[in-house]
């Protein structure tokens, strides 16, 4: 290396070389993290992915066009017909404001770029920033070397890429950056005990609150850290100043987000932070009193005070909970603690696939070598405990638990995995690199190695080679996962044809554009909630329910319509002024996440309210308890609206060679009810591959029958 280095590099001082190397590594990390997320843009086009991002895109566009105040007061009458939705008060605006700020910034310099491009590329951009922040954070925890390793790791870790590929324009994309930034500033303020850093930390926290509901994790983790510091006797004035300022400022700032409102002082999720704040004051006060009193006096005082305050606090807490001032534990939080809670109690939470518990394989899939480097890193953290290290240990341990409960929280785990594994790898390499005797050619017979460490050099070489192999395989794994699993926009599907070519299914957009151009401006479209955001954003039509699942009864009503017979469904549809019904059907193409496969959730959610009490899940199974759409299937299933809409005219279609007509390629059966007519609906449009089918709701009969 040295012999090949050009002259100008030689001329630099070692410090400068060091800095240059760091900058180069970081720059490469940033570029890498940006470019590895571009698979889908290159393969398909610059398009927004999935469901939620379409809503975010739509709101961002509104924000850039109408300005912040109309955005803040936006009442959306296109969604949740006829209830409407107050958008300004029910979203975390950080993401939209960030994009709009970038948009206006670029416009100021006359870069006239479409807002969609900013939305598409925002997540990759912020993952570059995350790389930088990770470096800083790890540097604070350990050293620059570990920082570089962690930065390089996080730039391609699949667990994070899954939520931040280009086009995946979602809160998580920037939230991870905000979270790590807050942690960095928190550690800074704990280390320095300065109000300046604490205020910055509170600002970063504010940004985090404004961008993602996951801030709750953060506001519980920081108090937990403080608590751990107290328990280990590390509580100091620095921690006191840092926490008091961060908590006060952060709480006041977070209450400015209208979606959060008074939650920080009312809901139980924030009570830990509040309690620790109080504890800090007491702890500081006790320290002060202790310095003034003798030991015996102090002991008596301490015991009586603890007893008194304990009783009073329990009493007050009980009264507040009883009067409803402290909101009871919300469902989403319960499902964190008890994975089976949501499944048993709240179908709407359980129905979201990303709320399911994580499987072991997906840990390896998303983190690969980090899984087993993590304990190593933890060991190195424990071996030299500092205030900061305690923090990262707490973060790692809690997030591993949460990631095990819910798939989507893998995202929170990925950064800490990178950081701790980075520390682990870096420490290992540092240890063994030292043992590498690079100058052995020159002075081979120096001493013949240590007596009690016989083949030091060989072991060191072995470890380094092994580690290198791990790192290389990590890179290959990450790239493969990104390319295969996380870069499909899900709005455009692709499949391999028999001859090896690629078939593109662009049916979703085809259907949405059909709606946009062929239906009246104020037409109301009923569909299952998954497609709500896409329909409003792309078809610009009013929808009944969407991915913001805030009103269970309304969703339940739609579920009831889908699960009922035509007559019953017609009553519901007329009540809700539905003009068109849209279903996703995969039976012709083999697209498995279609409405029939989601149908049991509709039944469950539909039956979960009073008005849907007549809908029972068991009715939709065969007597043997199976869910089947063939002749054996339950007659109630074979005659419900959803079945009829999906399989209308399907009974006469050949889908696969050597199979009868009406052969469903997802369920791999011949459907049971082939020959039927629709009474209250008429087919309005079916896309090229039958992925999306749109039906028009008929008017009442003119002559009354």
């Amino acid at each position, binding site marked *: 290396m040295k012999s090949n280095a050009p002259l100008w590099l030689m001329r630099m001082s070692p410090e400068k070389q060091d800095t240059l190397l760091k900058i180069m590594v970081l720059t490469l990390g940033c570029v890498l993290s940006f470019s590895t997320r571009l698979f889908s843009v290159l393969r398909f086009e610059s398009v927004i992915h999935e469901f939620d991002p379409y809503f975010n895109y739509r709101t961002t566009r509104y924000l850039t066009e109408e300005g912040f*105040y109309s955005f*803040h*007061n936006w*009442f959306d*009458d296109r969604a949740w*017909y*006829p*209830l*409407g939705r*107050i958008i300004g008060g029910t979203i975390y605006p950080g993401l939209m404001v960030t994009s709009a700020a970038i948009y206006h910034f670029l416009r100021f310099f006359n870069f006239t770029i479409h807002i969609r491009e900013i939305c598409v590329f925002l997540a990759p951009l912020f993952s570059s920033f995350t790389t930088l922040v990770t470096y800083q954070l790890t540097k604070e925890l350990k050293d620059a070397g570990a920082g570089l390793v962690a930065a390089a790791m996080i730039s391609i870790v699949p667990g994070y890429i899954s939520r931040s590929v280009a086009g995946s324009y979602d809160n998580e994309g920037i939230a991870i950056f905000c979270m790590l930034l807050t942690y960095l500033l928190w550690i800074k303020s704990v280390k320095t005990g300065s109000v300046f850093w604490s205020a910055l930390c509170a600002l970063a926290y504010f940004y985090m609150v404004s961008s993602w509901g996951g801030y709750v994790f953060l506001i519980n983790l920081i108090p937990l850290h403080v608590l751990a510091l107290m328990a280990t006797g590390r509580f100091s004035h620095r921690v006191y100043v840092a926490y008091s300022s961060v908590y006060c400022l952060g709480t006041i700032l977070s209450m400015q987000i*209208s979606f959060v409102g008074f939650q920080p002082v009312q809901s139980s999720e924030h009570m830990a932070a509040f309690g620790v704040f109080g504890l800090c004051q007491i702890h500081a006060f006790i320290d002060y009193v202790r310095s003034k009193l003798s030991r015996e006096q102090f002991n008596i005082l301490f015991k009586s005070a603890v007893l008194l305050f304990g009783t009073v606090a329990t009493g007050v807490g009980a009264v507040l909970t009883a009067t409803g001032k402290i909101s009871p534990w919300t469902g989403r939080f319960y499902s964190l603690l008890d994975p089976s809670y949501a499944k048993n109690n709240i179908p709407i939470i359980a129905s979201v696939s990303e709320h399911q518990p994580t499987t072991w394989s997906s840990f390896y899939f998303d983190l690969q070598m980090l899984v087993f480097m993590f304990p190593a890193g933890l060991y190195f953290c424990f071996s030299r405990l500092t205030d900061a290290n305690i923090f990262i240990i707490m973060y790692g341990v809690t997030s591993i638990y949460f990631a095990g409960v819910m798939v989507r929280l893998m995202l929170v785990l990925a950064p800490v995995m990178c950081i701790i594994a980075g520390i682990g790898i870096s420490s290992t390499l540092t240890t063994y690199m030292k043992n590498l005797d690079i100058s052995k050619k020159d002075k081979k017979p120096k001493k013949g190695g240590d007596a009690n460490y016989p083949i030091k050099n060989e072991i060191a070489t072995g470890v380094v080679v092994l580690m290198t192999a791990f790192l290389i395989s990590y890179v290959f794994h990450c790239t493969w996962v990104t390319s295969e699993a996380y870069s499909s926009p899900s709005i455009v599907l692709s499949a391999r044809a028999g001859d090896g070519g690629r078939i593109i299914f662009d049916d979703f957009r085809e259907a949405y554009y059909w709606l946009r151009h062929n239906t009246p401006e*104020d037409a109301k479209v009923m569909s299952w909630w998954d497609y709500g955001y896409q329909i409003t954003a792309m078809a610009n039509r*009013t929808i009944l329910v969407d991915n913001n699942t805030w009103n269970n009864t309304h969703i339940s009503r739609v579920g009831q319509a889908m699960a009922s017979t035509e007559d019953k469904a017609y009553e519901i549809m007329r*009540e*809700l002024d539905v003009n068109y019904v849209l279903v996703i059907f995969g039976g012709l193409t083999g697209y498995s996440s279609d409405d029939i496969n989601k149908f049991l959730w509709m039944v469950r959610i539909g039956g979960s309210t009073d008005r849907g009490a007549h809908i029972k899940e068991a009715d939709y199974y065969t007597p043997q308890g199976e869910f089947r759409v063939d002749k054996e299937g339950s007659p109630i299933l074979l005659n419900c609206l959803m079945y009829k809409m999906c399989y209308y005219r399907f009974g006469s279609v050949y889908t696969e060679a050597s199979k009868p007509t009406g052969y469903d390629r997802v369920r791999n059966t011949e459907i049971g009810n082939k020959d039927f007519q629709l009474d209250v609906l008429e087919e309005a449009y079916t896309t090229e591959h039958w992925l999306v089918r749109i039906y028009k709701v008929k*008017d*009442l*009969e*003119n*002559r*009354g*029958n």
Partner: protein
Amino acid sequence: MAATRALAGFLVVLACIFSVYATGKKTLVLVDNWSIRETHSIFFRSLRERGFDLTFKTADDASLALIKYGEFLYDNLVIFAPSVEEFGGSLDVTAITNFIDGGGNVLVAASSAITDPIRELGSECGVEFDEEKTAVIDHLNYDVKDEGKHTLIVTDPNNLLESELLVGKKTSVPMLYRGVGMVADVDNPLVLNVLHGSSTAYSFNPDDKVSEYPHAVGKNTLLIAALQARNNARVVFVGSLDFFSDEFFTASVQHAVTGQSHAQSANQQVATSLSQWVFKEKGVLKVGKVFHAKKGEKSPPEAYTIMDQVTYSIEIEEYKEGKWVPFDGKDVQLEFVRIDPFVRTFLKAKNGKFSVDFKLPDVYGVYQFLVDYNRIGYTHLFSTTQVSVRPLEHTQYERFISSANPYYFSAFSMMAGVFVFSIVFLHYKEDTKAKTE
């Protein structure tokens, strides 16, 4: 040539405009045989006098057509052909129902010689005719001129629908009726029972023994049924062709059982009134301008805010004696609906303009101003206007609330306290230091 063609074109345009305003005067009359023109001349004359343009055709005429080049040739259809086996030309039951669905009005008179096409048409419109050769029989209410079968029925005027629009002014004179009975389809909410038999009436073949349960019994036996379709097309079924005949119009009535007699039957009055209704000379309403705005403003806002005071007005006109005049209903209601009505209030009429001021509910959402005026005899008036009602904007809340005064006080006193404390603290800094050390 060109000039005449232009003129002809102009006339066609004019005719079109004219025909739009002179709502529906072109009428096709289908008869079984030409003699009906003579036997029912009073009825037809009264139609002509009221400006109807009658075209007579036999029901099996091969040139029959209701529609040409996608346009209806007639506005109204009279079917006085109970015994037609099959309609001629392109006419069939489907063509007639399409005519109704396209807004055409139909008057059907049947008799005991009723055939399948008419029965089919009836069942398409929610009316089930009894079979061929049956008749409505009433052994307690028949006319003295009856020939022993008790099928010439004297109908009780109390059995008439109480609606001046359909059957004219309330009368005490009975009507004569001889023909087939009907029953209404119970599932059809649109069928109106205009005239039904008395409790002693039933429908059966008068020459047969009553061996099975009759098709219609007692008050369920409909003699005249009307249907106003959802597109406001009107259809009237009368089971008796003789009901419209000159003979019945001019006949005197003498009840064979009670002996009560009247110099002239009420047939002419009821028939005229029915024809006025079915051909939309009466009871036709239309909605003019619908206006809504915040109280005192000239144009509607993009979205209302909850608890706004709003003004809503709707202009309703009635077609009376060939002119559109302001409607003066007292019972027109406005509903403000979001799935369920949140506000339901009467509208005050003033010169055909119905208006009301009310306060919006304290619930945001997408609402509809809904006027759903559905009265017997009148066209179904249905007007919805969708508006959104938004919650308060962030600037519309009160800035300072008196109940928060303790908090304001505590905040400011805290600030003042810290200020005073810092002065004191700074001032005595040296002293305290000296003390502690």
